[in-house]
């Protein structure tokens, strides 16, 4: 059986690997692979953790107090908590020059999805109209991934946007705020449907409402934000561990792949990797190769490979990402109510706004605030901190945030290239991104509709608190080496096989020709399963 070398250990990589391993391929995975630290006091809830840790401030704020969110107009309300710092750790010498784009890279085991919020939103048939395969293929991938990772959801009003698939688990218990929000929606939804074409329902989340293999169902410890200590909440490192238990799998951590080499027939012959800690590079040979390091990292490897072999400095066009808008809100009916920290912490509800063009769908994830830190909110209120503390403590149960996502399309002006130094020893990824000219109108329209929907549901968006996130912040990167029926230069086939290099597969978001307003991760995993099924 052929040997397959895979670069990366993110959601695409691990599900691609697992599918191949089950077909008896010999798989080697090359990865920088910074590991997740062991869970701290795994049996403790959020509240008991504060009581039982000898130094809770160190855990929640970090060794160097990097978890303190100080006022800064360019900063987000919340960053990655110190317990997940390893997700964004970068090897020495790694750099990017970006314009109009603020990219994130992860070299962790499991990739950036180690810090994701678990949204599993299948694309629908209209959204994959530009993909060179039928929806049924992807649907099978969704069902398979759902069986592997555990996805909760419900056949409710949002099912009109997210196709139902097999292996969906029952949803978790709603927290009090989300339950109140839903009950008001049920009473007022006719108006929302008629006037705003806005629908609310349960989000699909990669967490467990019943035991799945060795993983236990969610026990509502309230620690989701800092990393689920019981692994009820899915991250790709769980699947990586599953791969590691199989005899035909070899995991090679500590290697950063710089490029691949190829022969005169354009067949890839090896992957060249440098030790992440520094040292001499090494070549890894195989029969077939897969880049699954995330759209930008895979694109960089591709660009470097072509440059080293031919001297050609490519520009790969069509980079996409979801624009996100954070809209904090106060639910007036929940003011003064106590909050329960022992509940699921990420979004449990979502809203969808329909558009005449099905690709123009606007998606929002509604997160009610429970154990999230309050100081970033208090610091942003136009009041002294003592007054702000009184307000946030009494409004704690009433606070929420909608993360609104907009779709993106491939455009020529948005490209990725390389900046190579004089002796060609070092290269930096160069990213150029500009929003489409009509984006301002789309933003305004989405903000206006979500604001009106919230108001109709008894929630207000405090003035001055809305935040349009920079491009790159959603980390849903796609589009640089798209799947295409036509064999264009630097495109891939319907099985994500490179049209340039026949034994090279690009198994991540780089191959997506369109980016709906949905978290891409579930579709990345489903597509990886689909490719492994069709091309191997």
């Amino acid at each position, binding site marked *: 059986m052929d040997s397959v070398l895979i670069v990366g250990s993110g959601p695409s990589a691990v599900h691609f690997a697992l599918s191949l391993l089950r077909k008896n391929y010999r798989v080697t995975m090359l990865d920088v692979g910074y590991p997740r630290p062991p869970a701290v006091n795994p049996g403790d809830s959020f509240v008991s953790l504060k009581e039982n840790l000898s130094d809770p401030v160190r855990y929640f704020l970090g060794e160097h107090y990097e978890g303190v969110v100080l006022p800064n107009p360019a900063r987000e309300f919340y960053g990655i908590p110190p317990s997940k710092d390893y997700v964004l750790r970068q090897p020495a010498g790694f750099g990017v020059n970006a314009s109009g784009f603020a990219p994130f890279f992860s070299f962790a085991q499991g990739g950036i999805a180690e810090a994701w919020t678990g949204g599993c939103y299948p694309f629908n048939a209209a959204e994959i109209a530009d993909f060179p395969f039928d929806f049924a293929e992807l649907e099978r991938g969704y069902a398979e991934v759902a069986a592997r990772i555990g996805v909760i959801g419900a056949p409710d009003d949002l099912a009109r946007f997210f196709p139902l698939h097999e292996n969906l688990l029952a949803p978790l218990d709603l927290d009090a705020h989300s339950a109140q929000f839903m009950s008001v929606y049920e009473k007022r939804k006719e108006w929302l449907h008629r006037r705003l074409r806005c629908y609310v329902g349960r989000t699909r989340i990669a967490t467990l409402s019943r035991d799945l293999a060795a993983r236990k169902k969610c026990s509502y410890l309230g620690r989701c934000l800092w990393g689920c200590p019981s692994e009820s909440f899915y991250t790709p490192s769980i699947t990586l561990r599953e791969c590691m238990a199989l005899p035909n799998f070899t995991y090679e951590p500590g290697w950063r792949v710089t490029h691949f080499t190829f022969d005169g027939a354009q067949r890839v012959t090896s992957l060249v990797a440098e030790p992440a800690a520094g040292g001499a590079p090494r070549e890894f040979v195989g029969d077939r190769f897969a880049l699954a390091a995330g759209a930008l990292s895979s694109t960089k490897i591709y660009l470097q490979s072509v440059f080293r072999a031919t001297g050609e400095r490519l520009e790969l066009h069509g980079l996409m990402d979801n624009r996100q808008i954070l809209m904090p809100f106060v639910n007036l009916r929940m003011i003064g109510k106590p909050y329960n920290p022992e509940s699921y912490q990420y979004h449990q509800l979502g809203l969808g706004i329909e558009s005449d063009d099905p690709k123009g769908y606007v998606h929002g994830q509604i997160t009610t605030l429970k154990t999230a830190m309050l100081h970033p909110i208090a*610091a942003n209120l136009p009041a002294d901190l003592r007054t702000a*503390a*009184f307000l946030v403590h009494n409004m704690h149960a009433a606070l929420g945030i909608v993360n609104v996502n907009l779709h993106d399309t491939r455009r020529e002006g948005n490209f990725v290239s390389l900046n190579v130094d004089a002796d060609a020893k070092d290269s930096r990824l160069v990213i150029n991104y500009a929003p489409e000219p009509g984006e301002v109108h789309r933003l305004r329209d989405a903000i206006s509709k979500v604001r009106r929907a919230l108001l109709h549901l008894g929630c207000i968006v405090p003035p001055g608190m809305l935040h349009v996130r920079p491009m790159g912040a959603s980390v849903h990167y796609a589009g640089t080496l798209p799947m295409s029926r036509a064999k264009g230069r630097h495109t891939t086939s319907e099985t994500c096989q490179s049209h340039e290099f026949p034994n090279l597969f690009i198994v991540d978001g780089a191959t997506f020709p369109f980016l709906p307003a949905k978290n891409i991760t579930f579709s990345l995993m489903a597509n990886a399963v689909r490719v492994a099924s069709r091309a191997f």
Partner: protein
Amino acid sequence: MMPTHATHLHRECEVFCRYLFGRAPGDYILEKYCQAHERSSEYFSAGAFDHALLSVASRGPAFARLADSYACLFARYSAFRRKLILLFSILESASVRHGFSEDVDGSAQPVLFAKIVFRGVLFALRLALACLLFLPMRLALGASQAATEKGH
């Protein structure tokens, strides 16, 4: 760290804690507050007004509240404000023995709304008083700092 600096930080933490929290900090909170100053350069004042604001605020909880009423709108990035936010984050990360309790006011909603409005009015009055004190100070110190920089 110099012992005098540690003493100064203890005093500052005590005042700010009484202002934010209504009581004196325990040893754990004091230790964390000082440690943050050792490990991060975010909490040092830069500029004459920044320094003056911090000096006034450190005189006592009432002064801290007055200074914060001004800083929350007009000196949001000052060292004083950053120190307060640091202390807030420490208090909310600590156990309830040391830090904030999550108890809500407990009043019926109309009473709570009335309390919020009342606090808003008090804040507006404090803000007016704070502006009378700190705006001239800022103008004077800004002018003197500009003159000093010009001299250099």
